[in-house]
């Protein structure tokens, strides 16, 4: 149902919203990045982002998974210590997210991997960072004032000048520093029919996440993460 009905629903709504406009024939990723900063077009962003994330999730799973390739295994072990650690982190993050969302495995530059979670229809792409939605606002530290929490959560503003503390950032806002390579869809309609809500400790999110680990298509993940330097570009 998550694929056939939900994806169809997202695309139907997205098509009806973008019909006749400039973004009628653009890809879901382009639409999401375009409308990330526009609160008036929040529905368009939501549908586009959900369609994209959902399709991404289904592209990374396969009924007949093959074992992880050696290069990918080495890279992940360098970042996480061991593959078991990565598995544990992903599953724990996924089960502890209260509410719908996605958990992503992202690759930054120079073979650094990390886990990112996006609530609801949040997007991991740096171009849509305004709607990354990485935190559940209700679980913040209420001992600190909300203004301070907000300041700490968002990226620094005082990045102008050459010598400021925050101004050594090497990238413009929206610059590519994250490459999402794997994700798990933790919306209820994905796991509910097969795993139930998890009442009584049976089934639920944790069981779904655990069995998801065994159907990950590591070949697709490797291709997503791989960056082949083409000789004709490099001098």
């Amino acid at each position, binding site marked *: 149902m998550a694929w056939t009905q939900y994806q169809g629903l997202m695309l139907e709504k997205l098509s009806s919203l973008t019909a006749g406009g400039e973004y*009628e024939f653009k890809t*879901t*990723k382009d639409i999401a990045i375009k409308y990330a900063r526009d609160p008036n077009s929040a529905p368009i962003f939501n549908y586009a982002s959900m369609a994209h994330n959902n*399709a*991404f999730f289904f592209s990374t799973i396969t009924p007949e998974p093959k074992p992880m390739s050696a290069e990918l295994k080495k890279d992940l072990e360098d970042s996480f210590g061991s593959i078991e650690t990565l598995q544990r982190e992903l599953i724990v993050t996924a089960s502890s997210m209260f509410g719908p969302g996605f958990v992503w495995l992202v690759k930054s530059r120079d073979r650094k991997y990390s886990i990112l979670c996006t609530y609801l229809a949040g997007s991991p792409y740096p171009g849509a960072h305004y709607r990354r939605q990485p935190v559940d606002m209700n679980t913040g530290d209420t001992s600190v004032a909300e203004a301070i929490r907000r300041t700490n959560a968002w990226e620094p503003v005082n990045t102008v000048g050459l010598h400021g503390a925050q101004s050594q950032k090497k990238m413009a806002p929206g610059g*590519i520093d994250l490459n999402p390579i794997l994700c798990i869809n933790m919306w209820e309609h994905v796991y509910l029919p097969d795993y139930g809500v998890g009442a009584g400790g049976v089934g639920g999110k944790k069981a779904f996440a655990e069995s998801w680990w065994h159907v990950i298509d590591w070949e697709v993940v490797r291709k997503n993460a791989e960056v*082949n330097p083409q000789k004709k570009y*490099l*001098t």
Partner: protein
Amino acid sequence: MKSIEQEMCWMKICSISDDAVRASENATSADSFNLESSQVDIRQHSRSTMILRNVAIRHGRKALAAPTPRSLLRTLTTETLVEDREAIEHSIDNHWKETGANLNQLYTTNALHPTRDPSESIKKVQKDFILRQHIKKRTSHIGSNITPHYEPHQLLINPPRPEDVTLELLMASQSHLGHATSLWNPMNQRYIYGVRQGVHIISLEVTAAHLRRAAKVVEGVAYHGGLILFVGTRPGQAASVVKAAKLAQGCHLFEKWIPGTITNGDQILAKCEVKVVDGLDKKVEGFEEKAAEWKALRPDLVVVLNPRENYILLHECGLNNIPTVGVIDTDADPTWVTYPVPANDDSLRCIQVIAGVLGRAGEAGQKKRLEAAKKGDITWLPPPGLGKPKEEEEKENKAAGPGEPKGKGVELNADEVESGRRSRPGSRGLEEEDDD
């Protein structure tokens, strides 16, 4: 008083600059000026020092960069004040630091190192670009399948192939729209489907069939090593003509055809170079003299996108037995071209489709020709009279002996198929707009 002070300033600056030049020549540091100078109390000369500083800043570049001519120096004192000089330099340094001006602009500061290594930043940019392209390739299509739709630039970047020609595409490109019925040429009646809103409608099947035939002709000519000229002189047709010529490895023309380019080619194309290539399109050495004297080349096929405005070109082609392909509208004369393609020549989209299709056909023909050549099967003949490269002919003459007549004429040796009667557009200087 003021004028004397100003004179003094000027003298002092000039002498400082001369010292600076000498010092830099001797490669000593700025701090170690070991000139004999009397220690003068700065306070007494504070006003002049102030003036010196400001003048140096304002005219710093000129003052420091241009050493005084030798003749003038004889009239000046060479006495310099260490404190003044150092004060000026410090203040200039501060000035540059404060304003962040680029020191590299000064001619004397050529010993400065650049702020970052340019080669490293280039590599970083390349890496970032590759990463971006990779992410785009892996993730941008995910989410939905976009229905095929019209994107104007795609007709030029990625033109349709002859196999992609459908009646729907031709109709969407407005190829069926002819001219007003009163303006028609009755010779075109076999291509017309009917009348609508006072305008003749060209039959789509006829357009498709003739376009496919023209594509086959273009492909065949390209396969056999022919030179194809694409002509489109109306405004807006330049891009499609250039693209088609690029794909078919032929020549393009998007400005006025100079009458006589074929019939009087040796005059008009005198500046165009001719070179001899082998079966794999590689230049062959040893034909320089012959190539320099060779007659001006003629196209083997001419594709005209607006024949109504290019009568002279088509007439010249007819005189010289050069086959032509042309887009014939309902008011054009179909007998002007060998292979008419009945379509709307006023619609740029239609022209882009037709030029794109013919360009793709040429590309396919070239590809097949080169593949056959790699296997050793050359699909064309060298022109008569080309002979062999200079060294080989000399060898043959020596081997044949002094008394025997020199070998001439076409020597077709399958092993060393060297000569080509076709030259590449680039070598002929064919980037000029007004020539082929």
